[in-house]
């Protein structure tokens, strides 16, 4: 093992799986031990990922021997799938996020979930999730990625529905899984289509094929790109499949932090970056898709991202549940990332993904700490004045908020600026949307801060709140560090090595703070202006406000925002009219036409014949069957005897 250090990569992937299996089979009754096994596994994976960080150095990829998984056929039409590990800058960055942020959240959970009667099941699911997520990250082919993609889906299902006795949690889990399945439908179809065209599911093969011949996907290139994007739409909750993410907040808060903020929902963006070569194929569409002519898949991706960012930010403005505000904010930030991929800036997207993982995990864990302190109250209008009572939570939460809003020198500023700077060059419409979303972001986040943390207590629970135990506060402090400095440590340059960003940064360390203002001044100034404007607006409306003044000011629009623009209602209606109606129709046909007329018809005739024959026969099934077999044998015998 030690002469081949690259084989250690398998351990990174498998340790969490061992932990999940061990907990399920052996330690489910020993909750403390289960938690320790799970934490040890993810921390060990993190440590090994750091080893690979050193090993990788300047090389592009580390070759890890793969396992042949399915191998059927040769030549065209053959399916050969391996389980391999692709360790390069892109996957390593993601591994560090998943295991690093994951470690902190595992540890935090040890405090937060204390006393839950399914403590072991919680950690087993968490380990299963870590395993599946690492599988997506390390996959070297589409098929393997899809396998782990689905496993992430089921882990998420198990964790959202962790408190399955609560009908709302059970429903949310179901909704999340089904919405994801809609996206996966496109994803799998896209994979099959690309396999049909190129003859391989291996990333390297497809990439090489497309590099030598950008037209290799023929007239299906746009369609293939869009189908692959469907997968990301489901997992990263992009419009119109965004509806599951806010409901997913029914899961325990650390789960929301890990899965529905920092890692799993980022998988869609990661997949788009990993498979970016598909989108670089020459756009073309078959003639029977007239509306796709002349459209490139990236264009659609960018606009979907932009629309998601805008819609989600608007919805966030009128939410009152602290976790839901953060959930919509996550949607909105994911929209930024997807938009950036669509604007041919995957490295910027990965940069924002990374900083977002830090500050959003921090914000969610902070929200968890608040919820823990005020006895599971989630309505911000029943909090207030928590600054003095939860000092560590407050200050770290504030750092996270500033990073999310994009105030320099916090990490979020640099990554958001990279996206806006790119948008500024590529698409003015999306740039304007991006800046507007930045205003909204600051507005709703400071609304949250002003209402929940500042002012005076609004409820009994919040006036008696106490700071959370140390096991929960120190992950907050640990996450606050990268939240602050994440923007200037060269993440984009690191991941850019695999994403074709040629520019090597030679900027001196101290100059990196101000680099955006030299590089793309308009975008940087617009971003900064948005923060200040949004912040001032929030101050004017919400500083010491007894209740929300916004509904009185914009009336029905506030109501629409609070009701998420009625997407859920619309979908319910649509599903009832289409799939529901079809299903009713099929049921009726089955019961009355096929099962009814058809069979009753035969039944009737047979019954008649039966009555006639009853004179000679007993009518018992056994006799019938026996005579039938005997008759057949006799016939055969007579036929050949002659």
């Amino acid at each position, binding site marked *: 093992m030690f002469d081949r250090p690259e084989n250690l990569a398998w351990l990174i992937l498998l340790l969490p799986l061992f932990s999940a299996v061990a907990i399920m089979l052996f330690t489910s009754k020993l909750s403390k031990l289960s938690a320790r096994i799970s934490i040890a596994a993810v921390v060990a994976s993190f440590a090994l990922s750091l080893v690979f960080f050193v090993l990788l150095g300047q090389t592009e990829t580390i070759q890890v021997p793969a396992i042949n998984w399915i191998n059927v056929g040769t030549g065209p039409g053959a399916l050969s799938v391996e389980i391999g590990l692709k360790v390069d800058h892109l996957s390593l960055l993601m591994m560090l996020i998943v295991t690093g942020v994951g470690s902190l959240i595992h540890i935090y959970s040890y405090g937060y979930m204390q006393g839950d009667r399914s403590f072991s099941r919680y950690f087993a699911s968490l380990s299963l999730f870590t395993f599946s997520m690492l599988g997506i990250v390390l996959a070297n082919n589409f098929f393997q990625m899809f396998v782990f993609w689905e496993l992430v889906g089921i882990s998420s299902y198990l964790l959202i529905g962790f408190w399955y006795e609560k009908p709302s949690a059970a429903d949310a889990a179901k909704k999340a899984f089904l919405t994801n399945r809609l996206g996966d439908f496109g994803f799998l179809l896209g994979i099959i289509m690309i396999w049909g065209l190129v*003859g391989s599911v291996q990333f390297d093969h497809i990439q090489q094929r497309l590099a030598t011949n950008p037209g290799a996907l023929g007239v299906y290139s746009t369609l293939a790109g869009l189908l692959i994007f469907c997968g990301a739409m489901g997992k990263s909750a992009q419009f119109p499949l965004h509806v599951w993410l806010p409901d997913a907040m029914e899961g325990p808060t650390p789960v929301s932090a890990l899965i529905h903020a920092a890692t799993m929902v980022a998988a869609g963006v990661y997949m788009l970056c990993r498979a970016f070569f598909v989108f670089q194929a020459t756009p073309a569409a078959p003639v029977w898709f007239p509306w796709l002519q002349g459209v490139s898949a990236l264009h659609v991706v960018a606009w979907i991202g932009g629309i998601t960012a805008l819609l989600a930010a608007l919805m966030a403005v009128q939410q009152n549940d602290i976790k839901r505000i953060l959930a919509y904010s996550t949607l909105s930030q994911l929209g930024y990332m997807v938009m950036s991929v669509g604007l041919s800036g995957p490295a910027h997207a990965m940069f924002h993904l990374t900083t977002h993982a830090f500050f959003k995990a921090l914000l969610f864990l902070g929200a968890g700490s608040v919820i823990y302190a005020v006895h599971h109250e989630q309505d911000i209008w029943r909090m207030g004045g928590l600054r003095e009572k939860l000092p560590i939570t407050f200050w770290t939460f504030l750092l996270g908020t500033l990073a999310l809003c994009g105030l320099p020198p916090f990490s979020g500023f640099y990554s958001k600026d990279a996206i806006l700077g790119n948008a500024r060059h590529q698409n003015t419409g999306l740039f304007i949307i991006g800046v507007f979303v930045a205003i909204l972001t600051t507005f709703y986040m400071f609304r949250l801060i002003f209402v929940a943390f500042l002012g005076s207590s609004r409820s009994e629970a919040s006036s008696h709140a106490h700071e959370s135990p140390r096991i929960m506060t120190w992950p907050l402090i640990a996450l606050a560090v990268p939240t602050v400095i994440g923007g200037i440590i060269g993440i984009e340059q690191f991941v850019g090595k695999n994403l074709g960003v040629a520019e090597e940064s030679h900027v001196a360390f101290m100059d990196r703070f101000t680099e955006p203002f030299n590089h793309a001044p308009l975008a940087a100034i617009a971003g900064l202006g948005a923060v200040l404007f949004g912040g001032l607006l929030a101050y004017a409306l919400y500083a010491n406000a007894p209740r929300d003044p916004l509904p009185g000011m914009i009336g029905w629009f506030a109501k629409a925002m609070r009701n998420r623009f009625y997407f859920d209602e619309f979908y319910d209606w649509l599903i009832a009219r289409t799939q529901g109606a079809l299903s009713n129709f099929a049921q009726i046909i089955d019961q009355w036409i096929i099962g009814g007329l*058809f069979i009753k018809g035969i039944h009737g005739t047979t019954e008649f014949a039966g009555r006639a024959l009853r004179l000679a026969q007993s009518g018992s099934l056994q006799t019938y069957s026996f005579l039938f077999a005997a008759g057949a044998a006799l016939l055969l015998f007579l036929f050949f005897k002659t």
Partner: protein
Amino acid sequence: MSILTYIIACPFVGALLVLCVPRNYRFVIRTIALSAAFLSMVLAIRAFAAFSAGGGYQFTQQNNWVQDLGITYHVGADGLNIGLILMGAIVGFAATCMAREIKERDKEFYLLLLIMTGGILGAFASLDLFLFYFFHELALIPTFIMIGVWGRGENKNYAAFNITLYLTAGALIALIGLIALYLTSGARTFDIVAMTAYVKTHPISLANQNFIFPLLLFGFGILVSLWPFHTWAPLGYGAAPTSTAMLHAGVLKKFGLYGLIRIALPLLPDGAHSWLHVVAFLCLGNIIYCGLVAMRQRDLNLLIGNSSVAHMGFVFLGIASLSLVGVTGAVVVMIAHGLLAALTFALSGYLYQQTGTSDMGKMGGLMRPMPFIGAALVMAMMAGCGLPGFANFIGEAMVLFGSWNAFPLPTTLAVWGGLVIGAVYMLRAIRAIVHGPVVETQTQVKLTDAVSLWRKTPFALLIVTLLIFGIYPSLLTDKIKPAAESILAMANGGTVVPAKARISAGSAAAFEAKSAELKTH
């Protein structure tokens, strides 16, 4: 003697012994039945392990039976049936374990169950057409009796009548097809191996092929609940005792599919080519239509029955594709679905025993009182909607990949059926049965989880087997592949050109050539 003979003989010997034991020695009867099924399973595992991939027919044994007609006792296994035999033996044992629910006339039940198990294993191991059919009938007849006598629900008699009618009709049509095949091939033998070799050099005439193939297709199709001949299945399984439903839905139903692959495809290649595009669309009736019907069921047994019908669509699609990936995938689905159907019916039977109902509206929150059964149900439902890790995913994915080039549109719809519709009803079942608060009607009933190792065995056995094949699919695919290859070599060797690939590497190459041409101009 071949190991296959022992595998088949075990249940029959068990049946004979059961016959000799007085009926009040219930423990002895049950022990004999379990030992016979267990021994058969162990031997099947041994045979599976000893099987060498790509070695053609193995463990063969041939004895003369009816010499005048060329009927022999000929058994053997290649990649196509070795997995099915293993699956059949495992399900046979699990079904015998579940037979403890039968309290009345249990001697006769065990007797029939063992005959059924032996018949199924015999049908899969036979390499003689007559033997193949004979064993199938031997397994089929106990099915009818078991539903009629030990069945449940008010629809019991109608269901038994219905299933008898359908399956007898199917078997009869298939028999006519087989007789016609025997007569027209001119090989004058019932031996499948000899017949295949003969037909390879003396193809059956096109007119005869086009006449015989549909007979086999619909005859076998009815046995497999091909749409629109599927209504017997949910109804019959809903009324059947647990063990019978497990064995029939899991194993016996695969007989028709096995017959199609083993006999119809290689012997009637031209007939296959002119009919398989019909199958590619009929199978959507299974996957989409029956999936939609399953969405509307309130009764767990009917839901599982419909879902089982829906899954058969994937096998038909794989067969219709006539591609190596597709047919290999179809065989994997047959094995995986056999295990899964047995698992779901076993769970449903257990729940019925405990709650006294199979109406999902009257269940709820069962995860808390029955954690083992609840977890097993979640796993079974997830396997049913194609979760990777279970063998069903491998098979279904391979079918979809394999059929894409030949039938892009049906494949697209099948992906929808598998990923979306399947998930809708499976998750609905989980939500209704194990999630949510405990329903009031259930609080009065005393619910016992499967706690003892003995009670857990059938469930754990089936789940573990599904997981093993799901995680390590080459165990199956490496064995199936060579057999599927030789069958496809014959099936695609007909005079008709195979269905042209529409969206394939070929068309991309054409596109490249076209664009290169455009550039030069």
